[in-house]
């Protein structure tokens, strides 16, 4: 399988101005040199704690916010360097589903108007076929025609999220970025949405970047997993490789934080000490070293690089280099 999208050394620092006349600006390091690629038709799960930069990556790929440096190669061209006017065409191929379904729908627009909007924005609105097109779309995501004339507040959270997915797939995208699409939903609604997404993927040959902090959901959805910590990817591997051999101490801690029932296997039992460090003052050396129970002397001074421990399995840790 070929790569649909390649991300190379992507960086984004947000600067916080301390005042108009002040010269010192503090930088928040949101994404700090991230590399990964997603193959055609697969799901890459992006997991990490809040504030690690997961959402920022999704926003950078859709150019909702501008990146500082790096490349995003989508179908052979660097989409970060092309002008806005040309990016419009590519935008159709990269769509996003957001975390809060209610906040991502306009409360004054009916569901039909909301779903129609992408067609109008991209000037592919065809008066004769639009109705049947919309009926087809809502059918795919499991909504009924009676929902079309309602307003967002009249739908449940699960139904609102289905509308969000419907809008995102309306223009037949190639890459769908799903930013915690089920974290605000109840478990049984979550199961409905996750199943619908899987079905969609095989029917429309979609490629997913699935962002979540819930490892059991990531595990269910993804083919490969990238683990992020403070703006960097610390481990990336296929799901089976990761389950068999997880190397990075943070990955182990994250996986052991998944609460289990008695009949579920657990391999590590690590309780992490302390909190995620302040991203304005990231620690020197390995970003994870203050919380790591296996740290070496070198971890405090030198930043480890991503190291290939097995085929397609990369880890950023001095213990393995």
């Amino acid at each position: 399988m070929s790569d649909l999208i390649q991300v190379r050394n992507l960086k984004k620092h947000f600067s916080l101005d301390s005042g108009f006349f002040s010269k010192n600006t503090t930088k928040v390091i949101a994404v700090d040199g991230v590399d990964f690629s997603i193959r055609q038709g697969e799901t890459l799960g992006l997991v990490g704690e809040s504030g690690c930069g997961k959402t920022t990556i999704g926003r950078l790929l859709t150019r909702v916010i501008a990146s500082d440096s790096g490349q995003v190669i989508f179908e052979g061209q660097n989409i970060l360097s092309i002008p806005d006017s040309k990016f419009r065409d590519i935008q159709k191929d990269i769509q996003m589903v957001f975390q809060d379904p209610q906040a991502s729908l306009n409360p004054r627009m009916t569901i039909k108007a909301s779903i129609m909007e992408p067609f109008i924005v991209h000037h592919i609105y065809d008066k004769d076929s639009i109705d049947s097109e919309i009926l087809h779309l809502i059918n795919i995501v499991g909504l009924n025609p009676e929902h079309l004339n309602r307003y967002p507040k009249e739908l449940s959270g699960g139904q609102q999220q289905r509308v969000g997915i419907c809008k995102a797939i309306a223009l037949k995208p190639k890459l769908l970025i799903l930013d915690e699409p089920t974290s605000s939903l109840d478990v049984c609604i979550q199961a409905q949405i996750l199943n619908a997404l899987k079905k969609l993927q095989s029917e429309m040959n979609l490629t997913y970047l699935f962002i979540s902090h819930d490892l059991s959901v990531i595990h269910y959805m993804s083919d490969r997993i990238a683990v992020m910590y403070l703006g960097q990817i610390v481990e990336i591997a296929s799901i089976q490789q990761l389950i068999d051999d997880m190397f990075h101490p943070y990955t182990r801690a994250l996986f052991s934080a998944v609460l289990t029932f008695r009949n579920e296997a657990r391999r590590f039992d690590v309780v992490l000490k302390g909190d995620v460090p302040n991203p304005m003052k990231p620690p020197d050396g390995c970003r994870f070293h203050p919380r790591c129970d296996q740290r070496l002397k070198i971890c405090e001074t030198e930043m480890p690089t991503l190291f290939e421990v097995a085929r397609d399995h990369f880890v950023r840790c001095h213990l393995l280099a």
Partner: protein
Amino acid sequence: MNNPIRNNVLLKVRGLRTRFYTYEGEFDAVNGINLDIRKNESVGLVGETGCGKSVTALSILRLIQDPPGKIVSGSIVFEGEDLMTKSLDELREIRGKKIAMIFQKPMSSLNPTFKIGTQMTDIISLHQKIGKKEAWVRAGDLLRSVKIAAPENVVNRYPHELSGGMRQRVIIAIALSSNPDLLIADEPTTALDATIQKQILALIGDLRKEFCFSMLYISHNLRTVYNICEHIYVMYAGNIVEFGNIESVFEHSSHPYFKALMNSLPRFGAKEDVLAEIPGTLHSPMDPPGGCRFHPRCALVLERCKIETPNLCEIGQDHWVACFRAMEVKGYE
């Protein structure tokens, strides 16, 4: 009613019915439930959004805002006394002192304009007649027992200067400041990351040994409840549909709703192709379906379920289910 006889009962809720009066009509958010909490026991209350979990908790403390809500019937017996008959002044002696509560959002439970130490000592000196100096010492001790590294530093900070996990620790410290007999925790870890959630759950476990309190732990997360509670109550649309010993209920889940809820969780180890779903959504609270309230979404529905409401029946040792077909669903051999 159908509850088993249990000794050492600290809190006994019988026939609790909390009704809300809105412009669209009135409805019972809590529909006549029974619930027991024994001494030193941790009880989980689980269910979907809108099933009445939080309303139950607020009703126990009689914190339901009136209007729109009102407890229309039932009794809440705490340490042998019915809280429903208490005056507001008497309730004030109980709230926060004998029954403490922690809420979901650690940010909105703390006042952003006061230092942590000030907020803690206010509450400590309200419930315990001790001097200011002693209260500050006590605040430091409490912060130490919730495993905050530098208490003397934290007492002088404002809530926004602390991380979410630290704030939740401070709130737990405040809740435990007067040695309550019962702690009601309403989704205390939902807003936190997985690794921090694990820290907090481990902390609550340690504190239960140290302070010996009973707990009502409300959550929609079945895994946390399994890991922290000894008893569990499952709510659906204002009713208790299954309850009992945590091992029995999880191992032999017998209500079609709870069984389906368990199956809809993505699991580790076995990678499913398709997750089990519960079709449809929770009905509007204004017009609950007749008979068993779960019947429109139930895979095992009978004609009888549409007319009759099933009662809670004991189907195993300390395991009660409200379903006509529980014997067919149940995981017992």
